[in-house]
């Protein structure tokens, strides 16, 4: 499972980005997305496009944690969202590792698919296909719960960070402490 976590300001400006991999069941915590290295922009495209759904979902229920809101099927990327009261949005893209067997089977003739599956093949073989319960099914209740825990913890850290007197609203979060805390939360829950 690979994760890409973003905090977006109310005007969609990214305040914080981090990519990390799972640390459960022998994962080494390094993100291996299905896109080739030259196509890492896809993460941002997918996150950005899911804002359409987030905007809709935020008016449809009263919770801060919106659960799984959107999916990008070609790369099986799942987006979970969390709203901060200030209007900032926490978006987590999670992508289960592609099993090598399906990678070879899925349409290798296709242009997009070829790129995806080729990269996933490399990623999958090196990370020994971590198969925790979270990784296996990105929409399962366990995953939702784990993501919720992660989001809550990050939210707590986020509040502490933005209350710093040197932080103005809308500024990019550069604090190394914040980054390590988020990484720790990711290691703990995801």
């Amino acid at each position: 499972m690979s994760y890409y976590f973003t905090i977006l300001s109310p005007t969609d400006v990214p305040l914080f980005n981090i990519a990390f991999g799972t640390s459960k069941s022998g994962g080494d915590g390094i993100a291996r997305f299905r896109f080739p290295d030259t196509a890492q922009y896809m993460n941002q495209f997918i996150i950005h496009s899911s804002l359409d759904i987030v905007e809709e979902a935020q008016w449809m229920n009263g919770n801060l944690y919106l659960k799984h809101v959107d999916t990008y099927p070609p790369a099986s990327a799942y987006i979970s969202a969390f709203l901060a009261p200030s209007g900032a949005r926490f978006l987590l893209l999670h992508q289960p590792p592609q099993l090598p067997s399906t990678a070879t089977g899925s349409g290798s003739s296709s242009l997009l698919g070829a790129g995806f599956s080729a990269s996933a093949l490399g990623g999958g073989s090196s990370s020994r296909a971590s198969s925790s319960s979270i990784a296996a099914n990105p929409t399962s209740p366990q995953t939702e719960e784990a993501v919720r825990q992660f989001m809550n913890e990050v939210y707590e850290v986020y509040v502490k960070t933005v209350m710093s007197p040197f932080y103005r609203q809308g500024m990019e979060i550069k604090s190394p402490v914040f980054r390590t805390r988020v990484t720790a939360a990711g290691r703990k829950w995801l």
Partner: protein
Amino acid sequence: MTSPGDAAPVRPPPSFSPGVPRVASKTRYPNQRRDSSPALDSDLVESRIASSPPQPPLSATAAELPIRSASPYARSVRSSTPQLTRSSLGSPTDGRFDGPDDIRSLIIRSFSPVVGVYASVDTDELVRQKGFQGGFWELIRPFGENVPGKIVVRDSVGASRGWEDFGVRFVDLGGHPETSESQNSLSQLEAALEKQLESPDNPLGGVLRPKDFLSFPTTSPLYKSFLRQLLSVETPTPHETFRHPVASVIVISSRNTSPLETLRRLYADTSSGDRRQPEWVHPEYLRYYVLVHDEDRDDITESTKLYDQMKRHFGLHCHLLRLRSNQCVVTDDDSCQIPESEWLSPSERLSGRSEPLVDLDTDGLPYLFESDVTAIKAFVRELVAQSVIPYMENRVTVWNDQVASRRRGISGRFMSMSRRWAGFGSGSRSSLIGSGGGISGNFDLNHGYYKPDVPEAVLRKMADFAFMLRDWKLSASTYELLRSDYANDKAWKYHAGVHEMCAVSMLLNPLAMPGKTKIDDINQMVETACYSYMTRCSDAPNALRSLTLAMELLKSRGGSGIESAAKWAMRAMDLGLVGSIGQALFSERISACYASRNPIHGVKWGSRHRKAGMWSVLAADLWLRLGNPSLASAALEEAERLYADIMDSNGLFPMPDMQTFVDNLRHSVRMSYFEARGLDIGEDTAPADPLETLETEETSEKLNKRNHRKSLINNPVETGGFNIGQEDDNPANDDFERA
């Protein structure tokens, strides 16, 4: 004008006044009336006639319509309910959907009845003299695709509706359909697209999408051609009967020395001889006899005599077609070019006429005398309106009474259920063995088809007939009946086909509500169809067809269907059903799907512009990789339009990675575009220090650039690209814009 719907149900008796002035005022401006209400139901027109028979202009319009024997009064009462609903459907959107160019109409027209053509040797010779190497079939083929005038079809409840765009497809009965190599036809499709993209004489307008006045992008012609070819696979298959002949035209000419014997022989050929259809085709179909009279060489009195004889022998399904046998050339006074056939299968397109580049006028399409064209059109209209349609209606009614109603009723359900349970003893054992044999035992496992006269096959044929007659309600319910039958018999291809068509007819039926549950049902059916086609039958073309149909129709449904539409398109790409050109086309299509979702009224959210924009950018990337910068730049422009209200005031994406990617993409699109145009870009690309030039140019460009292009100027790399446009000056730049 009151809408037709509210007028009809409470139609006053003829003596009652309110109805009359309305009609009278209409007839004063007969042309205007007909123009202003083109979608007027024909039965409504008839009901007006009934209320005021002596109005001459109206009876003139009625003369065009084949009036059925049923009394107009009774009919209009019976059909009052459908009329109401239909007119309530006549909202502005409906008008848009019914446009001849629209995808929905394209899909409907692609499922038109097939009429076989079998001509005698002397007829083909006569036609060859006129310059048609393919014989009589080739001569009339383009004219069947759009029958002139309105065709009135009556559905199972007796309501009639006129269709402007009805057509039939003529196929050559003699032509031996090559066995369908499934994978092959997809690669052929791709190759045909490639050919179309590359063809040099293709005016760029043929590939690029025209923008209509509201700047809503219409469907790109290339995609339409893709869809058309996908839907015009001509080889008949056992599992659906759309490509089985509904009728066949048997043709002789006036040159024939023994006409009646020839006709008999031709008939015998089609029913038992070498022109016999495969065994899974229902052997009973309509035969239509045509006598071609040679205007230039033969005597019309002789031909009339012969024609009368034919009518005596073969009944009413006869026609005398008067053609000239001389070849027509462009320079003749009344020459007119025959239209190109719209439904060419990929293989035909590939092997199609190589363009004679020398004389640009001809296009390789032969010419005909105008009198011939009129004669053929009249023949086709008579064939369709007076023979094919009534025949199909009749078959549907008969089968509906004899086969379907037995299944529909309580006892029918009971029967099929008891059959299923009764099968426990013997059936379960045989299915354990794996031979299956089905519970009904009608399915021939060895050959993989149903015999044409078993109920399952007849029902399928009836549903297909109803579908082709555009009675989607009946067809949907019949397909639904069949779904479990085919699953029990493990007739997987039939099973897939029936799920696909059930979903399609539910989507086409304008009366069914697009409720959430309905959409879920439909999605489920498409899923099943796709799975059965792909996994159980490995029939990729049909899987692609079902996914594409589902996508297009869900898209035209709008609302919550759009998400599913995009999902099916992605599925098609994921399964690798489309080639590289198809990938780009489908990306554009997904973008169009998302773009058609509008924000909820009054609030800002609810649209899918970000998603649409993303897919447009991806499409641009794919086009660029395919080496087609003009299409790429069209897709990019589309993306810019979609992103317009999302980008911040500087026209920048909030996300840095996206920004760089889009900038790079723009740059390379521009580069390869200029390369393709042969412009020299070496001289002033990449100024020595981009940052230096940036400041100065930024301000100057901001003034004269179009609004949504302003994001171009912020990247130093871009400035290099832009210099070309500026210094080569506007002509080049304009070209780029247009492309």
